[in-house]
């Protein structure tokens, strides 16, 4: 049955080789036995000690998140150390655990003995039950002092984000939260832990990758009673990078105070580079406890960039610009008698001044904010040129500010040719088919103020490593818009008059002449019941350093409500910054960075 090719000699050969193999086999098993025997029986006690008395427990070391600073090194968001207290059964007797819990109850001032049940149900002896978290250093110290009488105690450090300015910076800093479900895989790819908190919105979210530290790992040696003996840090935690903002926290807080109790927006910007010095939207919420927001749902809305408004009379600056560009003479006068009729339009468009302003030129029209003048101007310019000019100044498109959830606003770009005349003249005074965000309006004014550079508004100044090395410097972008000197000076004259001359819409607010403020009020109709009060201005008009926008929702008249607030902001800026020349905007960092390396200061200088 077998097809045999085998030769007898081979069988013998095979046998001899088998013998060698069997010898090898026996030798190998002897080697194995020689190794197994000493490990288990002779060194067994040593290893058992290692196993039972020296638990090497890998433990995660949280890395502190980077701090967010304002331009004067004041803290906007910082990670503070907090402590959590756990108890783990390890190899403890029930009695010992009971004693530990009793003592901890007294130390923590709360009943934790009830947790004994949960401890008993743990299957692995390494698991731990949380007794208390977010304890401060003062609260944890008595426990740490007692720790050798508290077998089974585990104290873990963690970090809690704290926003010292509270609601004043809530729309800037953003806050932390669990990783959103949709982003889980994306974050886990970047070595995040599922339990990590991440920035949800705004600066915390946008600069998440810089702010987030890298968690480290330590291996803790614990003894039989679960007490920490020593620890070996295998991967030290790396703290996140610090983010420096262009924001001036004092100004921000001051602006927030101004709006307390009202719903509105204040933005302060440096017209020379688009750096935002303050941006407040009320009502706010406390980012230290984002769960406890007020009844008004809108508190999470940053109205400076996330809400649409008709710009009202503040838009008239743009109407003027469009008119001057289209060749209408700056000397051109229109008559205002209080009412304006369009052909085939049976209802008159009115000016707020019953009886009218009479014959007014462009400067007077801006000064008095004469609607009738701008109706006729808009009619003469035409919708296309008006909308194009607004678009060039950044209205109806994202400004690109480094905050979350900016909205675009609306300009009738495609409809411009077909707009009925009634809508066109309404556009001339910033009503009707137009919606802008306050930041867009302020940015347009900044472009006007600095002579035609439309900057991307930004909050980031620089990012520094924990060691103080500058990692990223802000590189603000701008694009040039066409703004002739003559047009600028013509309009500027009107803006100056509106603030500084008797009869100007903002005159009664009482801006000091020394400040050289130029601005425009606005009283915009968003619904039939109430008007939004606006003021936009910049100063000094011969060398603009600060541009401010104030918007009070349903506040009433711009000149009466918004302008006084703006006056306070300008006043605060000029009294606080002018008194101390070193603290003037361009060098504001140098006084507080005295201890910093020289190169950082040099680069700051270049930046401004």
């Amino acid at each position: 049955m077998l097809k045999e090719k085998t030769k007898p000699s081979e069988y013998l050969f095979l046998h001899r080789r088998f013998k060698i193999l069997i010898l090898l086999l026996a030798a190998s098993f002897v080697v194995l036995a020689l190794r197994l025997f000493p490990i288990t029986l002779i060194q067994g006690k040593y290893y058992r000690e290692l196993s039972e008395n020296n638990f090497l427990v890998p433990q995660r070391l949280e890395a502190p998140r980077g701090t967010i600073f304002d331009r004067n090194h004041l803290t906007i968001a910082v990670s503070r150390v907090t402590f959590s207290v756990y108890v783990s059964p390890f190899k403890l007797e029930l009695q010992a655990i009971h004693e530990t819990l009793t003592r901890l109850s007294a130390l923590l001032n709360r009943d934790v003995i009830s947790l004994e049940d949960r401890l008993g149900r743990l299957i692995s002896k390494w698991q731990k039950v949380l007794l208390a978290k977010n304890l401060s250093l003062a609260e944890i110290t008595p426990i740490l002092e007692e720790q050798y009488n508290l077998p089974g105690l585990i104290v873990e450090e963690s970090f809690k984000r704290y926003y010292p300015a509270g609601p004043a910076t809530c729309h800037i800093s953003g806050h932390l939260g669990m990783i959103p479900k949709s982003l889980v895989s994306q974050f886990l790819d970047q070595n995040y832990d599922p339990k990590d908190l991440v920035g949800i919105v705004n600066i915390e979210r946008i600069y998440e990758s810089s702010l987030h530290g890298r968690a480290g790992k330590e291996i803790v040696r614990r003894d039989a009673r679960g007490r920490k003996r020593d620890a070996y840090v295998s991967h030290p935690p790396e703290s996140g990078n610090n983010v420096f903002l262009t924001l001036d926290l004092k100004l921000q807080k001051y602006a927030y105070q101004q709006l307390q109790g009202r719903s509105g927006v204040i933005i302060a910007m440096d017209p020379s580079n688009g750096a935002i010095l303050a941006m407040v939207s009320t009502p706010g919420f406390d980012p230290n406890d984002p769960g406890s927001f007020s009844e008004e749902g809108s508190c999470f809305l940053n109205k400076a960039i996330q809400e649409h408004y008709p710009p009202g009379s503040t838009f008239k600056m743009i109407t003027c610009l469009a008119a001057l560009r289209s060749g209408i003479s700056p000397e051109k006068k229109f008559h205002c008698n209080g009412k304006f009729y369009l052909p085939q339009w049976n209802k008159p468009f009115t000016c707020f001044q019953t009886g009218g302003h009479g014959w007014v030129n462009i400067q007077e029209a801006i000064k008095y904010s004469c609607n009738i003048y701008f109706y006729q101007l808009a009619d003469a310019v035409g919708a296309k040129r008006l909308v194009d000019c607004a678009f060039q100044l950044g209205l109806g498109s994202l400004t690109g500010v480094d905050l979350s959830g900016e909205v675009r606003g609306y300009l009738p770009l495609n409809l411009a040719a077909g707009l009925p005349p009634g809508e066109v003249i309404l556009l001339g005074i910033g009503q009707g088919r137009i919606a802008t965000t306050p930041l867009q309006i302020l940015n347009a004014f900044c472009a006007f103020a600095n002579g035609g550079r439309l900057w991307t508004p930004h909050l980031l100044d620089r990012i520094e490593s924990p060691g103080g090395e500058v990692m990223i410097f802000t590189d603000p972008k701008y694009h040039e818009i066409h703004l002739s000197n003559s047009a600028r000076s013509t309009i500027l004259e009107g803006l100056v008059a509106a603030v500084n001359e008797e009869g100007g819409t903002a005159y009664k607010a009482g801006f000091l002449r020394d400040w050289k403020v130029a601005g425009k009020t606005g009283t915009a109709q968003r619904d039939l019941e109430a008007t939004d009060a606006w003021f936009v201005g910049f100063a000094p008009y011969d060398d603009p350093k600060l541009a401010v926008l104030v918007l009070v929702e349903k506040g009433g008249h711009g000149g009466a409500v918004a302008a006084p607030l703006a006056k306070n902001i300008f006043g605060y800026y000029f009294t606080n910054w002018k008194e101390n020349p070193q603290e003037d905007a361009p060098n504001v960092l140098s006084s507080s960075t005295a201890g910093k390396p020289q190169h950082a200061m040099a680069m700051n200088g270049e930046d401004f």
Partner: protein
Amino acid sequence: MRKLNTTFLIFTITLILVGIGLAMVYSSSAPVSAYQIRRSVQMENPQEAAQLNIYHDLGYLKKQAIWAVLGFAVMLFLYYGDYQKLKEYGNWLMLIALVLLVLVLIPHVGVMVNGARRWLRLGSFTIQPSEFAKLALVIFMAKLLSEKDKYEIRSFLKGFLPALMVLAMFLILVILEPDLGTAVIMGSIVFVIWYIGGVRVLHLASLAAVSVPCLFVAIVIKQYRIDRLIAFFFQDKDILGINYQLNQSLIAVGSGGLFGKGLGRGLQKYQFLAEPHTDFTFAIIGEELGFIGATLVVLLFFLLVIQGIRVAIKAPDYFGGLLAAGIITMIGLSAYINFMIVLGCLPTKGMTLPFISYGGSSLLVNMAAIGILLNISKYKEFVVYGNRQRDD
């Protein structure tokens, strides 16, 4: 009586080892599986994970039990068959194994785990083609040598070179996965078959001389292999870093002492020792069953190998002898290397312990191999002596 003894012993030892395996897979994988479930829930839904209380899970045990039943069926099937048929299928098995080894290298077909493509997905199961390739290679080599006469085997061109080329194909494919450890095992098994089969010692010695530098190059080109080698030579250094696993393994085996901590009472499987249910099951055996349990397992393997050699020597024909020798080398060598890794006598390397470690392909292939061995053992009594006498 003798026939009953050998066949019965192999059968019994195999079943005992599979039984110990299932118990140990349960003991060592329950915390691992539970940890993985908690981890995956945490990834999908961090909020929910806080309330999750899973610390034991039978997922791995259930899968292993299914493979064990399957393996037992295959073992019985091969036992009642006729191993001579394998000679006819030898070429086909070799080709199928090669195709599988190529398939596993293709992205999206082969499953990538820890940077290596070693698995193919079949529904909720994964199979490891290199395990099947080992057995296919043993069968093929036994067939190749048994078809040649003494002079052909001793010739380089007619005997050694064709066999070497087939082996080279297997090894290259396996190294590409990359899985250097399995390649070394495969080479060693074939080496033993050749040696027993009568290939000239000169050829074998020169091959060994060539493969040492090749192995050296294969180690040097991958940083992690260098690290493992360094870790091996400095075992007491950096026990929290590169020697962490080895140190935990020694703690596991050593802390077991004479009697062990008791089945299921080990501590090292709780996130201290990585892979407690696959490559380091023996460490858990040492910890939970002690010196006695570990020695018992080693002795069972020793006995199995002795019985296997007996089958090989008494095999009715040349093919059967080589096949039995190859099979027993495959099982014995894997087990031995696994023991030595766990005890720190060889550099740390993923290598399953036959019958005991978690791993379906390994279990199925090893049980199938035992089926073949049993079959050879069954035939030996009534043909062997007549056959040999006739040839004599």
